[in-house]
């Protein structure tokens, strides 16, 4: 019996709260069976990037430390706080500094928001860096994950780019002089072309610098370029790359892990759990062909648990921990803001952001080698790892193959010794330019503490490779040396370099200008 239209209208109106709620929460209640849990995952746009079930190893905090998620969480925080800052920030040399002062002093909780943005940026760089180390030492880049390792490297570069471009925006002394250094590093191929006397005809350095700054100096054009890169281009690239990165994780079979032994249905909480009960009212068909050596019909895949709610809890926990850490740091420590940029008064020492300080130490020996060659060599080397080390085994386990721990420990010692020794030698005795003042610059470009460091590390890695007869162990040796020298150089340049890049034991001994 059909209702009359007015009746129906009134009735629908009365039902409105329920129908709207049902439209939003289609399940109507929290999922109770695993079938409903799986529907909750793949019926939701945001959740369906997860697989319905994940391996329990994925959830082990000691395998991943949640570092990748932490980086993603930092990026989310950065996006939100960044948009808030964009509302008040004015990207022009005349107004930028004032607008930061306004954000600091006038905008309600503006200082706090800016602090969160700054600290999350630090957290993101740290998380990305450690995430890379985690992936390497668990051998997770191996076949078939080579491509995702490359995407990860690109993300590493974009993360540093985002942080670096954000550095200029406050238009204070710190920003101005750090970017001046940065642009001079872009200019550093001139060191080589000048030494060869061909700058007049071939000037890639000048081109790079001009491309970066839009002028020959850090000014209005540079600011707007950095702004566009910082708030639009690089975030967009990052979002696309992150999406591919996540998607590849699914396509490559989840996080890398050793093969499970054949086993029965998943058990946890002391109880055997039926993993999949066919619904009587539904017919099931073949949905996909998957790789693998055995079928798991009517029996749960071994050692997996439902993504809803287990993975979600883990993700939310990591996200909130990241937020909490950023908030605590932001509550107590203000983001730096120096005097208004003044081209007439150089900051001394003008230091790059901390994650570039290791490079700046190398740049102090030779801008071209430290600022261009070595970063390129390192990136190339990292990119080649999964293609040169094709031996399978040990994936998803920290130091998974035989002898890795020993080699990592030895390389740690070797890397430390060489890096510290090289710095101590250079500080005490100087380098070629001090001994032979009129020596040709090409010699310095070829032989400087940075290039010597690279050669020694490469030699050590080859030695390990030959002695252990394992490419993986050679790679472990090189990567460990890279990590340790990054830490040593960053520490050294942060603490022990003062005005004019002179050595000091402590910043308190710096002469004040």
């Amino acid at each position, binding site marked *: 019996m059909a209702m009359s239209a007015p009746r129906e209208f009134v009735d629908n109106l009365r039902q409105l709260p329920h129908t709207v709620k049902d439209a939003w929460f289609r399940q109507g209640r929290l999922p109770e069976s695993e079938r409903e849990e799986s529907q909750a995952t793949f019926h939701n746009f945001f959740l369906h990037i997860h697989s319905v079930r994940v391996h329990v190893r994925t959830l082990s*905090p000691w395998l991943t430390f949640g570092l990748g998620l932490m980086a993603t969480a930092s990026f989310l925080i950065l996006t939100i706080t960044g948009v808030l800052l964009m509302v008040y920030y004015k990207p022009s040399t005349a107004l930028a500094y004032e607008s930061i002062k306004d954000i600091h002093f006038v905008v309600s*909780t503006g200082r*706090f928001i800016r602090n969160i943005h700054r600290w999350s940026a630090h957290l993101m760089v740290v998380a990305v860096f450690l995430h890379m180390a985690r992936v390497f030492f668990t051998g997770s880049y191996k076949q078939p994950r080579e491509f995702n390792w490359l995407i990860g490297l690109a993300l590493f570069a974009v993360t540093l780019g985002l942080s670096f471009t954000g550095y200029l925006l406050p238009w204070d002394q710190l920003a101005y002089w750090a970017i001046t250094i940065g642009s001079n590093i872009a200019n550093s191929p001139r060191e080589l072309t000048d030494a060869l006397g061909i700058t007049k005809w071939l000037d890639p350095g000048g081109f790079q610098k001009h491309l970066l700054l839009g002028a020959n100096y850090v000014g209005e054009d540079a600011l707007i370029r950095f702004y566009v890169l910082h708030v639009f281009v690089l975030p967009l690239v990052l979002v696309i790359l992150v999406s591919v990165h996540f998607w590849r994780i699914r396509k490559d079979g989840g996080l890398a892990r050793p093969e499970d032994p054949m086993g029965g249905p998943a058990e946890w909480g002391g109880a055997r759990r039926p993993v999949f009960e066919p619904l009587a009212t539904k017919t099931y068909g073949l949905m996909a062909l998957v790789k693998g050596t055995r079928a798991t019909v009517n029996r749960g895949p071994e050692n997996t*648990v439902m993504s809803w709610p287990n993975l979600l809890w883990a993700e939310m*926990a*990591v996200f909130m921990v990241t937020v909490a850490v950023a908030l605590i740091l932001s*509550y107590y420590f203000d983001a730096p803001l120096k*005097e208004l940029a003044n081209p007439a008064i150089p900051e001394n020492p003008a230091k790059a952001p901390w994650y570039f300080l290791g490079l700046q130490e190398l740049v102090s020996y030779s801008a071209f080698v430290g600022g261009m060659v070595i970063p390129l060599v390192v990136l190339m080397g990292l990119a080649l790892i999964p293609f040169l080390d094709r031996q399978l085994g040990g994936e998803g386990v920290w130091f998974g193959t035989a002898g890795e721990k020993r080699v990592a420990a030895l390389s740690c010692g070797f890397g430390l010794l060489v890096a510290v020794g090289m710095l101590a030698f250079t500080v005490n005795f100087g380098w070629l330019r001090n001994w032979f003042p009129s020596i040709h610059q090409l010699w310095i470009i070829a032989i400087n503490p940075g290039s010597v460091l690279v050669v020694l590390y490469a030699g050590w890695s080859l030695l390990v490779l030959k002695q252990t007869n394992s490419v993986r162990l050679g790679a472990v040796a090189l990567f460990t040396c890279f990590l340790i020298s990054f830490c040593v150089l960053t520490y050294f340049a942060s603490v022990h370099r003062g005005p004019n890049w002179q050595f000091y034991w402590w910043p308190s001994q710096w002469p004040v*200008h």
Partner: protein
Amino acid sequence: MNNPSRLYRWMLLAASLVTIGYLVAAAVRENYLADWQTLQRAYRQQLQAKATDERGRELLKNFRIELKQVSVPALNTVDRCVSCHNGIDDPRMTDAPNPLRVHPGDIVKNHPVDRFGCTVCHHGQGPATNFHDAKADTNDVFWDYPLLRADLTQSSCLSCHDLERLPREQVALLREGMELYREKSCGSCHRIGGRGGSLSLALDNEGAKTRHELVMTNLQPPHTTPRWHLAHFSDPGGVIANTLMRNPTVTKRQALALTVYMLSLWQRDVPASYLSPDKIEEKARALHPAPLSGEQVYRQYCFGCHGDGTYGSWNKAFKRFIPAVRGPGLLAMATPEYLQTNIAKGRPGTQMPAWDAGGLQPAEVTAVVDYVRAAAPPPIPAGAPVARGDAKRGGVLFAQNCQGCHGMGGRAGMAPELANPTFQQAATDGFIVTTIQHGRTATAMPAFQNPAAPALTDAELGDLLAYIRSLGPQPAMQQARLERGQAGGTP
């Protein structure tokens, strides 16, 4: 196996509680506990207590607790000082506690807060909304111009006013500092407005300097420019190692006065509408300054090195002998033209600058020559002219008699440099001969033809003259020196 998400649930709970806690704490700290809010609440009570008439009630009714600022686009300032100094232009607030009370004195009558703001006179960080950041006089606040102490604030007046037309008692320190600058003859080395020596920095924009432009190495923090100037005037060598600057020997008050004067030297870009008419007149006058008297010129620009000029002295920092320019020995022989050339052209290669480039007008050079010669003894009558002899023989005589003081080849030594181009140009043969014959009274230069015991014959005198003349710049030698200079890479 335990529930794999158990750990994460606890983590989530803990992290969420921490997050909420800090968000609330930050919201309260930033929105309710800020100092300016507490102060404005106190100010409202002041307003309530004073709301006895129509206007008072009106002010109370309109008062809102909010950030307040004075924005002066013409001066490029945004000053939020009034967020705490609420009663700054309310004459009823004479008894209110600081920072709520009215601006002392009657200055704000002529300088309304809404037209001038605060930092144009007081400096400090205008955009800041708390006292620590607004003062900006500690090393942890990064702002170029920290708040000026009350007694230093008068240094800002000169940006818009002519010192002479300001009430004396309000700019007493500034006047004293300017007079001390003249009295201590700072102009001998320093230049202001194109007038002064070139031995040290020009001071035209000294007040605009930030702490990063001054050497703070030997100064205890906090490092501010006023503190630097105070310390530097008390002991220049203690602030800058190996400085050429002599200790000006000043009292604490004098150091303060000089500091105020230094801070006032600021070529500030102030819109004409903010300048007082007398400032515009002063600027016009400065283009054509009235010439100073000889005594004034000597006191301001010569005294710093030559002292009162009666005796010469050895200057350790210069590593050079400073001649007695008002000594009877020189004046008995030197012609006005000789002095004029030396002053106008200076002595290149020594610390004596060329004063025609140092901003002295020709009339002032003439005046100072007259002043120097005022106490001149009667000139020594020139003897029979001596002809130049053989420079080679003269060289031997020079080595025996002169080299000990005048140095090898007549360059550098304890006594004046005879090879100096200005000396060679300005000194006539007669002047050189007479000086050797009679020596210089009251200096170490003896007379070599003392009638009682003549040390040199006239012929020897001629040889010596020829040798001294050969020391001057020869065209060929100059050329060689230029080439050497270029080869060495120095311009």
